[in-house]
Each structure stands twice: as structure tokens, then as C-alpha cells.
């Protein structure tokens, strides 16, 4: 079938629209056929005919007929959601592979998506059921990356993904969010405000047309898109289970650089990250490590050693408290030993919190956090990275 030229300025070509329609039709069957791991990416790599043949079942003939008769009007278009197919110049080049989605429904503007995808994109994924530590790491990593002009790509799931997006939003950074279903319906009520915000400041993308509810396979499909779009995939915190490491497997299959944030060795919730590290994923301690990975050793030039200074200035008392909290004695109850002066200790905790070195989680639990960057630094870093962004874009990566 020849690629038709699109019939309207805003619409994609009929072939790609037809593909999107077919996925929506097969959504329930796909969910069923992908219960076993790993088949999804292969299935989605099939062309339309093969896909109908593979999982069409009894509806095969009917689907074939409707597929042949497909008119682009059948897909309802929603205001504010544009369609971008791979035959469009603006389609992200990183996605130009056979198994990437041929058509994206884009909320937030095609131009913006093109701009963001041309720049550096880092995928931040991980467990939906993360610890306070994982959430704090995700949010501070995303903050650092977004402040350096890197686009954070993620899904709309609880846990790490959500914390990453919130982190990026805190510094008004750009995000690309890939939805597991139609853009207008995939966000549940409680996440809708966030989704709207992500759409205003970044892009929200889906492979399925509007109105198609999210299903389980959509999450894996979204991860495939995220990983394909990103230059680096960072797994912030994940259990050692196939479900939570699905994104890592996809990244490996696509040959994309993989990185992971270590956690406490005793915590099963970090087991997956540790397994990835063992298998050769890059170790991430902070945003600087990700930037290193993106730009090679450029970091030394643009990020001076000043980052470590807030620690050096601490009095021994505060330092000892901070070390104890870092070692897992993270509530006042645990910190108060028999010899400690309680008032002193609580004062130290409050002082550290005021300095931004500790954050207070729910239920009165403390956890260490990255010190806030000095106010003057970010613009410099950003400029340096913007320059390198241009270089990467022209080198055709």
C-alpha cells in the first residue's frame, strides 16, 4: 500500500491513521494476547495485515473489510490534539524505527514535540510503589535535569514516574508524557489536573486515538515509546521483577544506554536497580551523572566542584545528625539515644531541614535530599548544555 499524501494540513496520512484505528479496535485482544511477557513489542512491530492475521481471531474477516474501507473521518479528532505520523518531517527522528509507533496523537503542539525530541531527552521510569527515598531521588534528578534543559520523558503512573514529572514541573522544565490510552480519557480523575499541567508546559503523547480507554498493554507500549524517544533511560527504583524491569528490557533491546539509581541493599524495592547495575547499567548518583552520560566528560567544565560545599560547612553536630539520618535512623524516635539531648537533636533536625538538606516525609519521617542549587548557577549550566544540544542535533543522533 502506497503512503498517501495527507488530505488535510492537520491530519496525518491515511495509512498511519488506519494503523491507529486498528490498534484501538484490537485493544482488548492485545491486552489478552500480551499476558505473557515480551510478545507485545513483537506484535506491535507487525504490519497491519500480519497483526490482523495474528490476533484478529474470529473478527479477522470483518476487520479486514473495515480496514480496507477505512475512511480517515472514522477517527474522531479532538480539539487540541494533533496527529503526527512518521511521514511528517516533524516526527521525532529518534522514533524512526520499524517498531516505533507510526502515528502519535500529540497534546501540547506538534511543533513543541519536535523541538523537545530534537533536544536531549532522558526517560525516567521505575516502580509505581516507590519508597520516600525513591520518590525524592526521582524528583531531585528530574529537577536537576530539567533545570539543565533536558527533557524528562515519562509515563503517567504513580510512584517514580509521577515524582519525576513533579520534579521537572517544579523548575518549569519540559516534559514528554506518553499515555497508555487516548489522551482525553487515559488520565484518571485524580491525575487530570496534573495531566493538564503537563500538557500546558510540555507534550502529552499517545499512540491510541482519543476516546480509547487505557489498558494494561498500553503501559508497556508507552514505555517502548518513551525509551525509544530518549537518549538515556534511567531506572530510579524498581523491584527485581519482570513487570518493573520491562522498560529496562526494552531499552536493552533497542540498544539505548541504561542507567540506574542504587538504593539500600536490604530494600527489595531497589532490587531491580541493583540487578541492572550488576548487568552493566550506569550508576546514577545525581543529575550530574546523567548529564555526564549524555555529554561525556563535559561536566567538569560547566559544573564546578561547589556542589559539595553545603556539606563541608556543617558543624560536627549537624553533620553527625545528617549521617545518622542517612544511615536509616530517620525518625526522632530512633535518633534519640540514651545520651542525647532531645532538644538539641530536634533543633538539629529542624536546622538541617531549613538548610534544605533534609526533607520531611509523611508521618514525621526524615530523609536526606540534595542541597538546593545556588541561585546564580542554573542559567550558566543551561546555556552550556543548550550549546551542546545543538551540536548533538546536527551530528544526527
Amino acid at each position, binding site marked *: 500500500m502506497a503512503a498517501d499524501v495527507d488530505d488535510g494540513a492537520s491530519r496525518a496520512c491515511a495509512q498511519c491513521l488506519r494503523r491507529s484505528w486498528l490498534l484501538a479496535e484490537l485493544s482488548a485482544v492485545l491486552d489478552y494476547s500480551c499476558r505473557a511477557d515480551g510478545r507485545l513489542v513483537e506484535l506491535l512491530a507487525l504490519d497491519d495485515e500480519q497483526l490482523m492475521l495474528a490476533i484478529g481471531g474470529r473478527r479477522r474477516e470483518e476487520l479486514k473489510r473495515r480496514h480496507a474501507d477505512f475512511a480517515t473521518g472514522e477517527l474522531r479528532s479532538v480539539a487540541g490534539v494533533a496527529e503526527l505520523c512518521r511521514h511528517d518531517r516533524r516526527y521525532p527522528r529518534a522514533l524512526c524505527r520499524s517498531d516505533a509507533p507510526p502515528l502519535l496523537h500529540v497534546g501540547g503542539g506538534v511543533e513543541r514535540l519536535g523541538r523537545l525530541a530534537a533536544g536531549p531527552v532522558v526517560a525516567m521510569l521505575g516502580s509505581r510503589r516507590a*519508597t520516600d527515598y525513591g*520518590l525524592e531521588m526521582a524528583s531531585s534528578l528530574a529537577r536537576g535535569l530539567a533545570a539543565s534543559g533536558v527533557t524528562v520523558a515519562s509515563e503517567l503512573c504513580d510512584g517514580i514516574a509521577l515524582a519525576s514529572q513533579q520534579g521537572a514541573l517544579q523548575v518549569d522544565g519540559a516534559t514528554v508524557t506518553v499515555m497508555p490510552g487516548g489522551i482525553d480519557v487515559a488520565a484518571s480523575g485524580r491525575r487530570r489536573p496534573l495531566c493538564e499541567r503537563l500538557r500546558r508546559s510540555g507534550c502529552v503523547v499517545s499512540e491510541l486515538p482519543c476516546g480509547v480507554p487505557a489498558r494494561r498493554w498500553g503501559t508497556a507500549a508507552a514505555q517502548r515509546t518513551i525509551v525509544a524517544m530518549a537518549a538515556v533511560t534511567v531506572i530510579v527504583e524498581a523491584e527485581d521483577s519482570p513487570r518493573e524491569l520491562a522498560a529496562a528490557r526494552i531499552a536493552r533491546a533497542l540498544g539505548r544506554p541504561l542507567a540506574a539509581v542504587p538504593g539500600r541493599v536490604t*530494600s527489595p524495592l531497589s532490587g531491580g536497580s541493583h540487578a541492572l547495575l550488576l548487568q552493566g547499567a550506569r550508576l546514577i548518583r545525581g543529575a550530574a551523572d546523567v548529564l555526564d552520560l549524555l555529554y561525556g566528560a563535559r561536566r567538569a567544565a560547566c559544573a564546578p566542584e561547589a556542589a559539595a560545599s553545603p556539606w563541608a560547612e556543617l558543624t560536627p553536630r549537624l553533620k553527625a545528625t545528617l549521617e545518622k539520618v542517612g544511615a536509616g535512623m530517620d525518625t526522632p524516635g530512633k535518633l534519640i539515644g540514651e545520651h542525647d539531648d*532531645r532538644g538539641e537533636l530536634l533543633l538539629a*533536625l529542624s536546622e538541617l*531541614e*531549613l538548610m534544605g538538606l533534609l526533607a520531611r516525609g*509523611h508521618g514525621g519521617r526524615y530523609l536526606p535530599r540534595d542541597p538546593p542549587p545556588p541561585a546564580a548557577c542554573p542559567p550558566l549550566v543551561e546555556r552550556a548544555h543548550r550549546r551542546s544540544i545543538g551540536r548533538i542535533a546536527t551530528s544526527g543522533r
Partner: protein
Amino acid sequence: MLARAHTFTIDGLQTRHVTVEIDIRAGLPAFTIVGLADAAVREARERVRAAILNSGFEFPGRRITANLAPGDVPKVGPALDLALACAVLAASNQLPRERLDSHALFGELALDGRTRGCRGTLAVAEGTRQAGLRTLVLAGERAREAQLVEGIEVAVAESLASAARVLGGGAPDAVPSLAPRGSRGSSTIGPDLCDVRGQQHAARALVIAAAGGHNCLLSGPPGTGKSMLAGRLPSILPPLGRAEAIEVTRIHSIAGALAGELAVDRPFRAPHHSITTAGLVGGARRGWMGEVVLAHNGVLFLDELSEFTRPALEALRQPLEERRIAIVRAHHSAIYPARFMLLAATNPCPCGYAGAGERCACSEAELARHRRRLSGPLLDRIDVLARLDHGVAHDLGAPPLMSSARARERVLAARERQAQRLSDDGVTVNAEMDARMLSRHAALQESSEVMLNKARERGMLSARGQHRVLRVARTIADLNGNERIGARDLGTAIALRPDASLAESRAA
């Protein structure tokens, strides 16, 4: 033949003066009661008839009409029996009438003519004084309660015959002696704080909360002793003052929870989490008081806070803010005092083991739901968060932290300081200070001033959050005997504040 007697009916926490008018005329024998009487009052006809006959009087075999004036006030309960019976006797010339104008009659009648005490006696005694009546005639079991009110005479009548004697100018019965009660005199009750091992942090936070009357939230995994600690709060609270005790007695007497004497202990109400909104704040029917009212001048303890229904928790906002509860329903409205200290306990997550990640089996969505229920307006009104952890082994073998008696001494000393400072402002504890009082009384030392400014600059404290921290800091300074709030006082208060600085990154 007309006779008139005075009695009272209870409407919310107020008493309404009721005049019982009896008219006896020739006609077929009948006994009719008019004037918005409820079922208990209408049944009084049978009790009154039997009691009169069994006391050796004669029940007039004519047409009797009883009017309860004023006609627009609903009359509830059996306490009008005595007044009805005496008025019938007076109207049938078996009793002189002159003393009926200066005596209030209050009590239920048994069929054999004996009297029984009724709910709300203290309120009725106050009503008697306000109505300008000289004597209150009532059953002996509630006499002590009525004697708490000065300026009226309390005449005990153990039976209808005694009441007739009193109204005829005779001597009343003797006030019965009190049944011995374990906790009389000293008000140290319940379990002692020295039973608690470990949990120093939480215990001290509880002392701070008790000293300033701050609302307090205990958070920790199951089995760490949240409920145990909460049960020991009454033992470190200061005893009730006379005025407070009268208020408590009036409320609990009307609710029927207290029998016949001045309350000694602060109320400690711990409703189960299945409680309805109406059960918590009241208003299920006319005159029904909720737990917040019954906890007035005491403690309302909500265990498993996150299991309470959302409407019930939301309904707590007004009483926590205004220290009273206004109930408005279709047929009745009332305002009750509700000045209580809220003590709540909760697990950090539905399964209870959140935080470390190792044992918690809750999904992020469940956590979000749990936190949504806790967060927001209710948490905004809680000043102190005490975190409990599983104690290490040596904690359980450690010597007790402090006894309730010692803790109470400290609390009392701190309250003394507060009362002196706040004497002109009409409040008694730091928790009730508003912004204006805070600016006057919460003076900061230089170092703490710097600290507070820093917290404000970093956006850690909202305006309301800052007030809460200052109130708690003022209490800690009072406990430590500091005139101005020091850095340690403020640091402790900041560390005890209930809001999480991570909250913004999780709400979605």
C-alpha cells in the same frame, strides 16, 4: 378548681421553665395533657394516677385537663411527673397551694409513689435560680448535684407523700450519704505514664500537647503503643477547675452519663471509627449531643483516624476552630460548647508498615487515598505530630521515662505560666491563642527570629503553619521556663509540626 406548679424541661443544654396548670371540672372521668408533650410525658398520666392512689391520696374521678405552658416548647422526658401529681393534688384540695408558687418540682414517679432522679438536674437547679424560685424539690439520688448551685434551697422528697409534706410546710427527707467511689478526692485516674517503656519522643510530645492543650496526632506502625500512650493522657492533664467541672457535670448529667455529683475527671471520649457524623457532632434528634460536646473540657481520642468517614472528619472542623458546635436541623437548632483537645492516632499507611518499604504492601494509590483522608483541613488544625517507632530491645528493658505525677507537675507549672500571661485575653491555654495574642505573647530570641525568617523564606511554613509552630514553641518555652522562645524551643516545635515538606511532590 385550678392549680399551678413549676417545673423545667431540657432543651439542648438549656432549661425551659414550664408551668403545669391543672383544671378539674365536672364531667366524665378523663385525664388529658396538652402542650407539646412527648410520649414520656403523655405516659405520665398512668404513673401519676397510680402514684397518687398508692400514696394514700384520692385521684379525682372527674375531667382533668393538664396544660404545659408555654405551649410552643416541646416537653420531653418523665421529669414532669412530680409537678403533675402535686398540681393534681392541689387542684383537688388535698394539698395547700401557696407553696407551689415558690417551689420547683422535678422528678419521675414510680407507681408506688416513690420519686426517681432525672437527667439534667444541675441544669434544672440553675434554671430554678434564674426563674427566681426558692426551692427545688427532687429525688434524693440527685440532690448533691443540685446542691452545687448556690442560692436555692434543695428539698429532698423520696416519695410523693414526702413532696406533699414539704409543700405543706413539713421537713424534707435527709440527703442520702454518698456511695464510696474509688477516685473521689484525688483525680489521678487510669493507667500511669510509667508503664510506657521507650517511646521517649512520643511521650514527651504528648506532655507538650497536654501542657498547651494542643491537638496531637500519634503516627506509627501497629503495636508501637499509640493507644497505650493515648490512654495515659488523662493522667497528665491538669484536674478540672470548679467552673469547668460544673460545665462537664451539666453536659454529662443531661446526657445521662453521670449520676448525681460533681465530675472529677476530665472527659475522655474514644468513639469507634464507625461513628456517624451525627454521632460525632450531634443533631440526630432534638437535644442529642455528639461526642465533641461530651468531650468538652476533656479529650476526644480518635483511634485509627484514617478509618473515620470523610464527612465525620470534615464535621470536626467547626468545633476545632470555634470551640463550639452549632447544630441546625429542620425542627431544632442549638449551640453547644465543644472545647476539647483532639488526640488522634493513625497508622502511616493502610497496612501500617509504610516508610521503610520492606514490609509495606500498599500500592501508591492506596497510600494516596490514605493521605488524602488525613491531609487537608483536619491536619491543618493539628499542632503536634508524634512519631512512634518500634522500640529497640534495650528500650523495653529501660527504666520508665517519667511518672504521670511528675509529668503532670510540669504540665501544671506550664499551664500556670500560660494562665498568668493570658489572663487578660480570655483564654487559658496557648493552643487557643489567635494571631493577635501570638504577636504579643510569643516573643522570640534573636537566634530563633533568624530561624523563623529562614523557614519563611524557604517556603516551609505557611502563615497558618507559622502560627501553629509559634503556639507550640510558646508551650515548649513555658515547659522549659523560658521567658522568650529560644532556638531550641522553636527547633523542637518545627520538628513536631505535622505537615510534610514532601507533600507537594506526592499530591497529584
